[in-house]
């Protein structure tokens, strides 16, 4: 696991917003560069705690390319006070960053395997660093299928990138929406309906899922029906992260802490707990 850049993990680094892009009506992407300090290195699937000064902190997954080295990229959905405050920031403004934290996607486990990525809604953001790595080192993996479901055509993230990835002949990329007007000619239906439309060998596949928990539960079920074993399925969990270093207990998920032991977990290791309504 990578170490956090700051010697004290509770002290935020000051970061400046280099670019700000609107991805969807309530989603935006910030590219950040440090004020004087080194750029913190991160692994796909890790997250940072972003501070809107005077408002609070929020855990946000890194959505940029870990190999690019031109800043830290975060895609943020406005759902609460902190994300609303972050949404109000513009290019040149500053914010605080602690991290990166947590255990990311198992990139080594993907080598030589068919890879299925199942993303729902804003869940595409934490998987985007994986996609960059898969495409950059394409010959190290078997079949690659990216299946992305979201609410409506207007909610599709990273539209231009998706279009360019879809033109590649060495991956399958399918997008579906829950509902659409008649000017949309793509797929409509839940993301799991795309699984039979892509090629992968279930016995030699690793699947990575990120999205709303209900979607991931249905996704795990569909992958299981297709023959992918639970040990080859990884999910990215979300809970109320506060300290991000496993001290405060806010994100405790039965025997584990999402912030420290996750957010990415092998499904068979949390299967039982995921089914508990109280957690």
């Amino acid at each position, binding site marked *: 696991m990578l170490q956090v850049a700051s010697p004290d993990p509770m002290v935020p680094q000051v970061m400046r917003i280099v670019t700000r892009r609107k991805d969807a009506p*309530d989603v935006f992407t910030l590219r950040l560069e440090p004020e004087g300090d080194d750029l913190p290195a991160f692994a796909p699937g890790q997250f940072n705690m972003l501070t809107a000064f005077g408002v609070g902190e929020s855990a946000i997954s890194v959505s940029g390319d870990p190999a690019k080295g031109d800043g830290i990229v975060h895609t943020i959905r406005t*759902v*609460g006070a902190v994300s609303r405050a972050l949404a109000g920031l513009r290019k040149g403004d500053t914010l605080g960053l602690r991290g990166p934290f947590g255990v990311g996607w198992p990139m080594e486990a993907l080598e030589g395997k068919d890879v299925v990525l199942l993303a*729902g*809604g*804003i869940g595409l953001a934490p998987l985007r660093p994986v996609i960059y790595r898969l495409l950059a080192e394409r010959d190290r993996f078997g079949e690659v299928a990216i299946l992305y*479901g*979201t*609410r409506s055509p207007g*909610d599709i993230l990273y539209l231009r990138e998706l279009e360019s990835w879809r033109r590649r002949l060495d991956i399958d990329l399918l997008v*579906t929406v*829950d*509902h*659409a*007007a*008649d000017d*949309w*000619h*793509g*797929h*409509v*239906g*839940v993301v*799991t*309906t795309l699984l*039979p*439309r892509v090629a992968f060998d279930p016995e030699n596949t690793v699947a990575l899922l990120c*999205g*709303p928990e*209900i*979607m991931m539960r*249905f996704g795990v079920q569909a992958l299981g029906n297709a023959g992918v074993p639970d040990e080859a399925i990884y999910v990215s969990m979300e809970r109320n992260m506060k300290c991000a270093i496993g001290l405060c207990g806010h994100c405790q998920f039965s025997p584990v802490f999402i912030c420290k032991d996750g957010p990415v977990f092998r499904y068979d290791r949390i299967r039982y707990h995921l089914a508990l309504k109280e957690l």
Partner: protein
Amino acid sequence: MAVEGLERIVREHPFFAGLDESFLELVVGCARNVRFEAGKYLFREGGPADQLYLVREGRVALEIAAPGAGAITFQTVAEGDIVGVSWLFPPYRWQYDAHALERVRAIAMDATCLRNKCDADPGLGYDVMKRLVPILYQRLQATRLQVLDVYGKPAA
């Protein structure tokens, strides 16, 4: 098309995969090849539900028209899928529109013919039901997810 060719096509469609040969002969008697150009409708809401379509090629949008919103697509189906289940039960009327998004080739099963053969041979009827129910269940599950609006904003 020769019956032999039609039989092969029906046998190879996922919906009838592994169907007993004696049943296959029965259902092929209800089948014919059809083609819809892009933009055409396989059927319209309220019309007589007299066919089961087995899609061989192309994509079909299942739509419901809403006042002020036009046609809203709630599902797309494609090669290997089926279109239409309203032929199963009275009053045998389509509940939505089915709209070809691109050129669609399909096997159309005459619903009255298929129902009569299923009634006459409960073994065939049970087999067809066992093929239809999982599809209906999958679509119910998918609808539940859509109704839950899982990608919507979480409650504050």
